[in-house]
């Protein structure tokens, strides 16, 4: 009986150790989901983040076929700005460069820096939507009462699946003054990619 009990103790310790290692690994797995999610989103466009394409990448134009691009702009509740697209929708030919503008106005008494975060719906269209120039690439400073036209130049890839006829480009403006330097740095690093 003594022997059996000491065996049990040894086995129990083994199960304990293995299980603890698994539990710790699963905490790691939880954190690993963060970069994994970014990768999956890059491939699938799952979270509406737009694709990357330079103006020189423009190859063929899909003439005779147009899609509708709708524009949408909102401000986060922390940002005392008004923000709206100049035109609400546009018929575009896939493969061709287009430009449009958003109008932002600081309606507060203070100078405020904002950062726009873009998103494209439907999600599966987002990897076919690229901005070659955008006010969202950098932070924007508006002095009190200042109004500014903010241009965006974009291209819808001719590879866009034919069943997608309407795309929506949406921006949300966030208040940079309300963010700490660490958040700003992290945000800048990520926004350069989108």
């Amino acid at each position, binding site marked *: *009986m003594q022997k*059996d*009990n000491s065996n*049990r103790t040894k*086995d*129990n310790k083994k*199960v*304990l150790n293995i*299980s*603890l290692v*698994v*539990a*710790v*690994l*699963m*905490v*790691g*797995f*939880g*954190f690993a*989901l*963060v970069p994994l*999610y970014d990768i999956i*989103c890059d491939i*699938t466009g*799952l*979270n*509406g983040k737009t694709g990357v394409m330079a103006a020189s990448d423009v190859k063929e134009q899909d003439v005779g076929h147009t899609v509708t691009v709708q524009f949408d702009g909102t401000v*986060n509740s922390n940002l005392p700005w008004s923000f709206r697209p100049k035109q609400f929708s546009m018929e575009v030919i896939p493969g061709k460069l287009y430009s449009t503008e958003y109008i932002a106005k600081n309606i507060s008494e203070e100078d405020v820096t904002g*950062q726009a*975060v873009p998103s494209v*719906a*439907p*999600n*599966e269209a987002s990897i076919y939507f690229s901005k070659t120039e955008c006010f969202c690439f950098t932070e924007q400073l508006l002095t009190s009462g200042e109004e500014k036209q903010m241009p965006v130049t974009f291209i819808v890839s001719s590879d866009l699946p034919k069943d997608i006829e309407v795309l929506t480009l949406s921006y*949300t403006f*966030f*208040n*940079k003054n309300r*963010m*700490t330097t*660490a*958040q*700003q740095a*992290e*945000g800048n*690093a*990520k*926004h350069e990619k989108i």
Partner: protein
Amino acid sequence: MSHDITHDEASHGHDHDHKPKGFVKRWLMTTNHKDIGTLYLIFAFAMFILGGAMAMIIRLELFQPGLQFVEPDFFNQMTTMHALIMVFGAVMPAFVGLANWMIPLMIGAPDMALPRMNNWSFWILPFAFTLLASTLFMEGGAPAGGWTMYPPLVLQGGHNVAYLVFAVHLMGISSIMGAINVIATIMNMRAPNVGYLNMPLFVWTWLITAFLLIAVMPVLAGAVTMLLTDRYFDTSFFNAAGGGDPVLFQHIFWFFGHPEVYIMILPAFGVVSEIIPTFARKPLFGYVSMVYATAAIAFLSFIVWAHHMFSVGMPLGGELYFMYATMMIAVPTGVKIFNWVATMWRGSMTFETPMLFSLAFVILFTIGGFSGVMMALAPVDLQYHDTYFIVAHFHYVLVTGAVFGIIAGVYYWIPKWSGHMYNERLGKIHFWWSTISVNVLFFPQHFLGLAGMPRRIPDYSTQFAEFNMWSSIGGFAFGLAQVFFIYVVWKTVRGGEKATAQVWDGAKGLEWTVPSPAPHHTFEEFGPVDLDKMAHGKDH
């Protein structure tokens, strides 16, 4: 067991167990699986009453349209805290309590494998829930963003976030330690001739549940840690302005959350699989298929999480995948339900209280399962999402499922724990009172949800008034029925007809070979047990 010959018969009765004397030594420092099981069950019951009281406030406010009794923010605190307390404080600890009490008795083990850790995993819980409940008295109140803790909403509620996160960490540590203990006990502590396929189904379902716990509780801990650092340490995991994505939280949360719902139901499957054969006086139909079905459900639970997020936006392929994968779970679940029905088929059935609760479980859990399959349909889900339909669904599977399973288990095993039979008449009153009221409470919520009443809102349009009033009346009645349950349990513990060792004439299993009440120490001699006494013995 060392018998002291000088003991006279009178003092023998209680002292022969060598229970430690004094409250601190007996309960605070206990390493005995039966005492810790009792502590878990008492704690779970207290939390059940606390969470239930919050549900009463919710139903009171929803009794009539308009705002009558509480402020909207307090209402949201109630829905959030009700869920957190019921999930982590009542249902999960109650099952761990049943596991502590019954698993060693069912497999012929002297105690849990890691008794000191067992003590620790219980005594963490009161601290976790003190942390959580203390937020009710703070400036800004308790968390009010829903138990799913979605950012950015949950981060906007003041400093209760920190308390919530640390409480979840403690609950997680407690559940993981409890799960490790269950696994080590089942793998190493079985009597030498008890094989895996001799084990009662309650032991099997708990083994699989324990693996789920170890796999997903750490993921939840990681997710809430990210919430904490987003709130206090300037990270941007879920902050869009900083390049993060709030939807990421939902993916991580439901990667935990979906296995979690099976963590709360698999042990109830186990309890019911013990009770139905006893009162049908037939062996469980399809024992091995029950084991495989449980394992299949556990596996599938990891690959269906995004069906909680259809309305968030997902590519069509993703919606189709998660829809079909979710519906597939109905297959192993159906295997279990048909096996229970086949067990009863042509059995010599009697309808004592545990059997009544188990029968209600089979029928009402199946209703909850059906509404679950409805929710799995992506196009339909967009309409039902965040309405009272989902509230009705998960209360059918959790109240008439998990909670009825626990209550059935308590009636089934309380003669073994206390040495007294409960009062059958009172048990039946409790059953009918609960079963009728719980249906009055939750069934109308299906219709409310289909008609579009949103969940987590303290007010509603007048068209919903009648069903809400019924639901509230059912709610108050169900709440009172559980207060009555306290009385029934209390009466049983204090006295009543003496229970025999066998208790139920159709019952099989090693727990029925030890006297009632079960002595403080059982199966101390390492050696083979009589497999004839086990339900799944020699034929495997």
